């Protein structure tokens, strides 16, 4: 019960400030039609209800699952299995990620369906999957994250030279949206689980950094998609 009360409070506190800013702007300088304004208010109510249910669901169901799978993985003993399941987990979590979907919908609309939402979602998911797999490999081999970050971004800048200009903002945006309310708890829990089972490592250093790597993957994947389209 306490959990529910806290979550409701958190979401309400979280949404009221943004909505208040928009309401104040509406009456001072925007003045959109009343119908649209009411749609916005209904949107606020729906998003609030949605976030409350979602966060409760994440707490009850997804965080424990992520942690359990995270700590079960290294016990399988085979490194390639950890990497493979890390890959799969990255993929399924990204497909379920609301932010990725919202960005894909917007890109689909703005590009008149040329970059369709499903193509973008699966490209991004593949990018995340590959990099979560790499991140697992990094934790296993105790490879410093800095090398992967520098190498990854180096590759990003290289690929960006060969991709059509329109794909560049989208690709970097895709890197940001993969780290939303679904992927973050799942991947963080996975990393903390894997790192805490492997002895003699700081959970802080190895668990974190996963989200960072998960956001390079989609940038690269969308840039490659751009090269294919171009």
């Amino acid at each position, binding site marked *: 019960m306490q959990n529910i009360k806290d979550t409701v409070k958190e979401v309400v506190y979280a949404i009221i400030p943004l909505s208040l800013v928009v309401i104040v702007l509406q009456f001072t300088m925007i003045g959109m039609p009343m119908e649209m304004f009411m749609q916005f208010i209904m949107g606020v109510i729906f998003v609030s209800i949605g976030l409350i249910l979602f966060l409760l669901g994440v707490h009850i169901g997804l965080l424990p699952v992520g942690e359990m799978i995270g700590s079960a993985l290294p016990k399988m003993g085979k490194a390639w299995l950890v990497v493979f399941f890390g890959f799969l987990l990255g993929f399924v979590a990204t497909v379920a990620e609301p932010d990725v979907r919202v960005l894909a919908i917007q890109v689909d609309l703005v590009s008149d369906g040329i970059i369709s939402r499903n193509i973008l979602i699966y490209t991004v998911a593949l990018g995340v999957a590959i990099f979560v797999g790499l991140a697992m490999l990094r934790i296993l081999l105790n490879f410093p994250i800095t090398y992967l970050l520098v190498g990854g971004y180096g590759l990003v800048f290289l690929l960006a030279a060969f991709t059509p200009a329109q794909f560049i903002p*989208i690709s970097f945006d895709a890197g940001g949206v993969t780290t939303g309310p679904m992927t*973050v708890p799942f991947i963080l829990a996975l990393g903390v689980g894997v790192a805490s089972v492997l002895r003699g490592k700081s959970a*802080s250093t190895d668990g974190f950094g996963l989200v960072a790597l998960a956001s390079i993957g989609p940038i690269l994947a969308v840039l490659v998609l751009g090269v294919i389209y171009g």
Partner: protein
Amino acid sequence: MNINIFEGFGHVLYEVAFALIPLLIFFLFFQIFILKLPMKKLMDIFRGMFLTFWGLAFFLQGVHIGFLPAGEMMGTILGQKEHLWVLIPIGFLLGFVATFAEPAVRILNHEVEKVSGGYIPRKVMLYTLSIGVAISIALSMLRIIVGIPLWYFIIPGYLLALIMIKFSTRTFTAIAFDSGGVATGPMTVTFIVAMSVGIATVLEGRDPLLDGFGMIALVALSPILSVLTLGLLYGRKEKGNERTFESES
């Protein structure tokens, strides 16, 4: 007055189901072959997934009927104003408020506080991230108004970040790069991006695909820089504390 609250809700339910099914299959595989959780725990997890399903459905519906159209219209109206510079303070304000409100940011702050043993308080993280995002949305507005290519911000930004890594501790490097993505949650992605696409659509000489997007990229970059800065400020203290942690554990 004609307000369409449940328009397309069936489609949203269908979409959410397809979004969650891979995750469910993945979990069931682990449950059957590896985890073998007792019934009671399993029921908790299914209850959690059920809540997640409806949560996502309502969230996406709210985005569809409210945030996307209203955000875009707001952008269209603001983009036609005579004094375009007002977009910059508005961007700052929205960025601050959206990040302050972001559930994913709260999850990260909580995990960071837990893992660092309360050493990095969640309040400090929250304010650092919020101001970082506020600045980057203000810059994005400037970018759309003036028509500066994304490169001019991204390259120096990441170079600066890579240089700062050299002086930062490993822990802060990891946290910084994580927080970059975390700050770009549903509020920013839905409302503020819709607004910037709206602005880029009405401004002459701007391509919404080229200028309207790219904001999330800047939003992801600026918290990286602010947390790395925080890391440098805390840096000396942390080195002393790490020794204490080791002797305790």
